[in-house]
């Protein structure tokens, strides 16, 4: 109640309701109902209500009095809107102009509820936003004619795009729901972590007490002279280290229980898992010969000579590998035409490219000759 009173203090007459300013200067309009002239002094709990039809404010007593029996005309002089009891509510903003604008904006936003994803390009989206803003401005501040036009546009749009609007609204609601759920999950996780941490701390404390007891006992029972050296054992550090180790998995388990680890404000995107296959250290190079065959029928005198040499017959040295290397070198790069490839790129032929640009080249040569 006190909040509303404070807001009432900032209340000002709305355009169109100028008749209320004709009261005496000692009593401000905020403290006096413009309809029944009751002042706050007489009724401490006085509450002002408005109807979004015309935004004329009046006290709750007046509303009850005038509209309990059904729809009635607005009591303000010159305002001939028909108001209903149901439509009255207390204003959130002190400035009723702002209140009205917010209402209009809310209504427009409910109709024009497209998101950026619905558009092909950012420019399209920006244009759409501009259009909506123009329309809103016309509705809020425009002249009567403009306002009517904007109203017509709004209604037409609503009629034409009912299904889409409904769908977007549903989506928005779902997103809201999701965000809320995530927030809740986070909160739960945090709570669990806190509880876990408290439990850990207690456990550790108890452990420490226990070990201390045990230590003291053992020192007391130990023979003379041996006990004192054991006092210096730093059990505490060991226990702490063990505690950290045991606490970490618990915490992560708690986090995974309530869902994935989430960072606030991050867009949730589902990444398609691309199966890349096993890692290839050779970067896709093919090692099967395409121009020659390997086989035992490949013979060379030099290899036969070496085969007979003791030096070249240790374990791990294979003449087949050497043969394969020789054959590879004989045929590697046979189809690599350096001139073509360095000039015009792999797989193209310099001659063909040259013939295309022959005219230009010829002109260039002639110029050089000149």
């Amino acid at each position, binding site marked *: 109640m006190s909040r509303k009173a404070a807001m009432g203090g900032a209340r000002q007459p709305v355009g169109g309701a100028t008749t209320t300013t004709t009261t005496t200067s000692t009593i401000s309009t905020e403290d006096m109902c413009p309809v029944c002239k009751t002042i706050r002094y007489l009724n401490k709990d006085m509450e002002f209500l408005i109807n979004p039809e015309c935004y004329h404010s009046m006290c709750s007593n007046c509303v009850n009095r005038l509209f309990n029996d059904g729809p009635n005309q607005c009591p303000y002089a010159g305002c001939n809107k028909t108001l209903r009891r149901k439509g009255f509510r207390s204003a959130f903003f002190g400035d009723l102009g702002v209140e009205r604008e917010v209402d209009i904006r809310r209504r427009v936003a409910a109709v024009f509820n497209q998101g950026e994803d619905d558009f092909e390009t950012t420019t399209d989206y920006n244009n759409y936003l501009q259009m909506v803003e123009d329309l809103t401005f016309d509705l809020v501040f425009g002249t009567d004619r403009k306002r009517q036009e904007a109203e017509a546009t709004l209604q037409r749009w609503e009629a034409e795009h009912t299904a889409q609007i409904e769908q977007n609204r549903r989506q928005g609601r779902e997103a809201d729901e999701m965000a809320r759920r995530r927030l809740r999950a986070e909160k739960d996780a945090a709570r669990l972590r806190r509880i876990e941490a408290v439990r850990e701390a207690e456990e550790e404390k108890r452990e420490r007490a226990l070990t201390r007891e045990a230590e003291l006992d053992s020192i007391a029972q130990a023979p003379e002279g041996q006990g004192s050296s054991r006092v210096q054992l730093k059990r505490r550090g060991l226990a702490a280290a063990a505690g950290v180790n045991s606490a970490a998995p618990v915490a992560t388990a708690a986090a995974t229980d309530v869902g994935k680890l989430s960072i606030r404000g991050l867009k949730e995107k589902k990444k398609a898992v691309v199966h890349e296959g096993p890692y290839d250290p050779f970067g896709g190079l093919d090692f099967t010969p395409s*121009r020659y065959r390997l086989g035992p029928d490949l013979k060379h*005198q030099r290899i036969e000579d070496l085969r007979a040499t003791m030096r070249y017959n240790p374990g791990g040295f294979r003449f087949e590998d050497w043969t394969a290397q020789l*054959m590879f070198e*004989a*045929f*590697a*790069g*046979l*189809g*690599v035409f350096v001139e073509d490839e360095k000039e015009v790129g792999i797989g193209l032929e310099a001659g063909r490219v040259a013939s295309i640009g022959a005219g230009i080249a010829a002109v260039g040569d002639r110029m050089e000759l000149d």
Partner: protein
Amino acid sequence: MAAEDARYRQSSQYRLWSFSPVELATLREKSNALAKASISERMLSSNASRPASGANTPDGDATPTLPEFLTPTEEALLVTFYTSEVLRAGNHAGYRDAIKATAAVFFRRFYVTNSIMTYPPNDMVLVTLFLANKAEANFVNIGEFANKFGKKNAESILAGEFLLCQALRFAFDVKHPFRALKGAVMALRRIGGIDDKRINAAEHRAHEILCFSPLMTDAYFHYTPSQIMLAALSLADRGLVEQLIADTFHHVSPPGTSGPGTPMETGDAPPPPRRDTKSEDKATIIGAWIRDKVLGTIEACRDMLSKELPEERREHWASQDVFAAELKPLRKKLNKCRDPDRSNLLELHRRRREQARIKAETEDDDAEDRGAALADDGAVFGDAGPRDTKRRKVGKGLEDPFGGPL
């Protein structure tokens, strides 16, 4: 794309050191022009600064005119001559063919991006040979190596080593056609019906060619090892190569795609029309179209190799007459237009290290302390020679004795 070609395209020889003739010519012209510009600049600046201190130097007697520089063609001729020197040095030391070939290729690659006027070819001959030994996993003692070539001091060889590595862009693996030749011979034997003696003779001759001709030409830049090998083999025995090619590119298109693409038809037929991808793949790898292209490439390579056939040319490069007629004037010219800063590799190396050291010292805040600590360490461990301490002293006094960055 054939699997073998894809693998060859991964090699540094293809990626870094294969050029089309136009590209190679452009590169050589560019390095020639760059060398000209930088050498003339250095000569002018040294002439301007010299009269005060070294007026009595014989060649510095106020010659504002620049010497005549070598043209790219003359440079290429000199590089080829020195390549023959590399091979001769390798023969003298009795190294394997692969080592000699690697050295020659290193040498030619070095002088693609560097001008022969900038770095002295005489020194680089030994540097490339030494590095080629290491690249081919033959680890020789540098002292013995220097002795073999009558050098007392091995430092000049070591001085150029990093320079060479840089110029090679650290691509030490040279793919040679020697092993490929053995593979081709094995494939020929498998075809059958060829006289064994004929194959042996051809192999012997092709190997001889491979040890000389491709190294003296630009074949390694323009062709792949297998193409070079087949070109050499065809110089030895053309029939064998034709048989081998026919056996390799044997793909016959299925009858449905007959037409201009049938393999037995020669000429520049386009690849057979698209029918089923597998057959088409095969056609692009071992079909008629690619066969003709390979044959054309081998023919071009063969032409290139035939310009430097071993017997005639070896005598040509070794003969005194040719030397006097063609090379002596060029060498004279070269002596005149050497880079004054870089003609001495040892000096250059020393200076570069000096600079690096000075830079490192000035970069450190506590350079003084560190220097002192170093000297102390040296005294303790006894490995800091007198030369080192001396150099340190000199380095402090002289900021940059030759002025300007290298």
